[in-house]
């Protein structure tokens, strides 16, 4: 991403570590790689969050390219300890597991357990990861009140922190477009990368993110079905199945998808350890990711982080199949509209004004 992409949120995030190089002067890897309990002699591109030195990264990749030859040798080795054997076993199974979409519930649980264990082996810390399926009679929808949004970008902050997005490239799922009064919804002249005090006089604000279309073009084009629409309407990605061709990115009319151009970096202390396989678990380089309406929260009955963080109440989220829900009230009582409806994508993201 370009250097001028300095976003409002970076001021609020933790101690601002995201934009600083660490003290060891090692720009590419991370100084934390020295603190790891042990050097791993094998491994795959299944990078998880572990920040590695260049050498380790290269080793891992070579091993991966040789389709696990490294793992075989390690797991057969007489000299390596039980832990590294277990790690190799996990890496092996993760490298050759199937597509999450096609897994049975047991298989889903097994891969989640492997990922949690692997994280524990690598960092000594425990995370909780869920593989909760879509609840019955739930279809998620979202509404955005243009009158209320003031462009504070608290939603963007909350999203980045909740979803463990790469801090080094300042990846954001949400874009807030600052538009000039009197020009209507003129996205061309809007600024989605502003860095000044808000609300700016004579402007209004409009947020975009993944609209979780009912007829998503990104899903059709994926050559390996690594992205799909879940029963509750969420459009999700299996990060481990994605081959990184970026066809979905070209197919999305809403700029809803992001690519990990490099290994994502999230400072250990800022990692959100409450994760979902399809949601905010740590990604690796070379795969797509996107907004999941915070699947780890929404399937647990909570609002997405952006909704919770919004100080003006401009964001409304809920179950479209529940007649009592707030989102249904908005759809029934406000003059709602959607963006680029002519493309036939059927977004589940509505805009309205007071």
């Amino acid at each position: 991403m370009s250097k001028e992409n300095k976003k409002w949120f970076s001021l609020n995030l933790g101690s601002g570590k995201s934009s600083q190089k660490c003290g060891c002067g090692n720009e590419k890897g991370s100084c934390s790689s020295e603190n790891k309990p042990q050097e791993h002699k094998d491994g795959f591109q299944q990078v998880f969050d572990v920040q590695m030195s260049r050498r380790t990264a290269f080793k891992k990749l070579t091993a991966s390219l040789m389709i696990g030859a490294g793992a075989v040798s390690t797991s057969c080795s007489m000299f390596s300890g039980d832990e590294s054997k277990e790690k190799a076993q996990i890496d092996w199974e993760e490298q050759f597991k199937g597509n999450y979409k096609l897994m049975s519930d047991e298989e889903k649980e097994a891969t989640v357990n492997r990922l949690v264990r692997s994280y524990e082996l690598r960092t000594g810390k425990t995370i909780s990861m869920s593989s909760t399926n879509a609840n019955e009679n739930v279809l998620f929808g979202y509404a955005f009140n243009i009158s209320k949004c003031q462009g504070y970008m608290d939603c963007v902050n909350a999203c980045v922190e909740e979803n463990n997005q790469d801090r080094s490239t300042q990846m954001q799922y949400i874009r807030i477009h600052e538009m000039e009064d009197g020009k209507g919804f003129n996205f061309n002249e809007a600024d989605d990368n502003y860095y000044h005090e808000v609300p700016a006089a004579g402007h209004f604000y409009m947020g975009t993110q993944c609209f979780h279309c009912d007829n998503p073009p990104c899903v059709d084009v994926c050559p390996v079905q690594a992205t799909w629409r879940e029963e509750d309407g969420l459009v999700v990605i299996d990060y481990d199945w994605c081959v990184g061709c970026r066809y979905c990115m070209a197919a999305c009319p809403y700029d809803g998808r992001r690519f990990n151009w490099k290994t994502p970096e999230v400072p250990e202390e800022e990692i959100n350890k409450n994760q979902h396989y399809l949601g905010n678990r740590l990604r690796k380089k070379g795969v797509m990711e996107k907004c999941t309406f915070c699947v780890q929260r929404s399937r647990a009955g909570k609002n997405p982080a952006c909704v919770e963080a919004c100080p003006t109440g401009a964001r409304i989220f809920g179950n479209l199949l529940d007649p009592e829900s707030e989102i249904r009230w908005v759809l029934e009582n406000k003059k709602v509209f959607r963006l680029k409806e002519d493309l036939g994508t059927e977004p589940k993201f509505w805009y309205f004004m007071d």
Partner: protein
Amino acid sequence: MAFFKVFGSLVKDSLRVTTHGSRHYHIWMAFLTFIMLVGMYCYSIQIEHGLSVTGMTDRVSWGLYISNFTFLVGVAAAAVMLVLPTYVLKDVDFKQAVLIGEGLAVAALLMCLAFVVADMGGPAVLWHMIPGIGVFNFPNSMLTWDVIALNGYLFINITIPLYILVMHYQGKTPNPKIYIPGVFISVFWAVGIHLVTAFLYQGLQARPFWNNALLGPRFLASAFAAGPALIILVLAIIRNFTKFVIEDKTIKKIGMVVAVAAQINLIMLASELFKEFYAPTHHSESAYYLFFGLEGKTALLPWIWTAIPLNILATVLLTFHKLRNNLNILYFSCLILFIAIWIEKGFGLIVPGFIPGPWGKIAEYTPTGIEIGVTLGIWAMGAFIFTILAKTSIKIESGELRFRGKK
């Protein structure tokens, strides 16, 4: 078993032939090897750090690799313009050129596959795409159609010439009943690969610059101009450096093919420009960016304004029989036409598709040195493969290389 014996001997002979040659030949091969090594080094950096070492971003997510891929599919498809007259219409003039054309198709297809792999974020998990082991999203994803089309075409273009060469190698006449059906399939398949590749872009409602019914036909026209133009240049070089006889008549006939295709291409270009600029809509912004720049962002201007005049000049030169039949002018026109179409069908097509972005953001794309290094490396690989294929087949066709199984 007899076939494998012959084939083994052919491989051995071809290894001998391709490792021996004039000083020029060795310099050429050493040069290509060097470029390939540079390309591999660049690719190793890309593997280590990810695609962040390229100029691509979330705003412009396909760049030089996919541009070259798109262009080379066209070059590969162009072999059909030689195959069709030779085998189907029994026009002998093309017989000398057709093996060269098919060799070029094989090299171009391998380059295509290399460019696609270079563009992947996770080349290590490409097995996810193999039907059976992975999940092949057929027929929904046009990319899976393209995988089938390209690999099928590669198979056809390897087997047919191989059969003919193996037969000639043994001093036998190839049986038309065996290879003619394959030839017919390859004719349709060649149109198919290019149309399918066009549909890859054409089917995206998100990108108005590509979502245009003329894209597929225009792909075909430009491919049938650029591909045979390259074949003419290659034949000219082969004629110059080897004893292989290629008559003027053959080259002039291919020149005719190029001329017609270039004219059709130009008509379609005019139609496209008319639609974009007579009554410009919101959807014409990409074309505006390409030809005139938007908001002071003008990175593609020098390229497209090189391509268009070259394209027109080449087409005009090729249109006049007198000029086209002068071989030097023909070679010159083919060269500039090839360059023009490479620009126009390459990043002149891919990059503006992303600019402006879905919300009107204009973020430009400039390839990095590493990206260019990998690209050159892949082109060198293509040239290397083609040289080996061409050298062997020329030796067989000229009768210098023969099977000596039973002594």
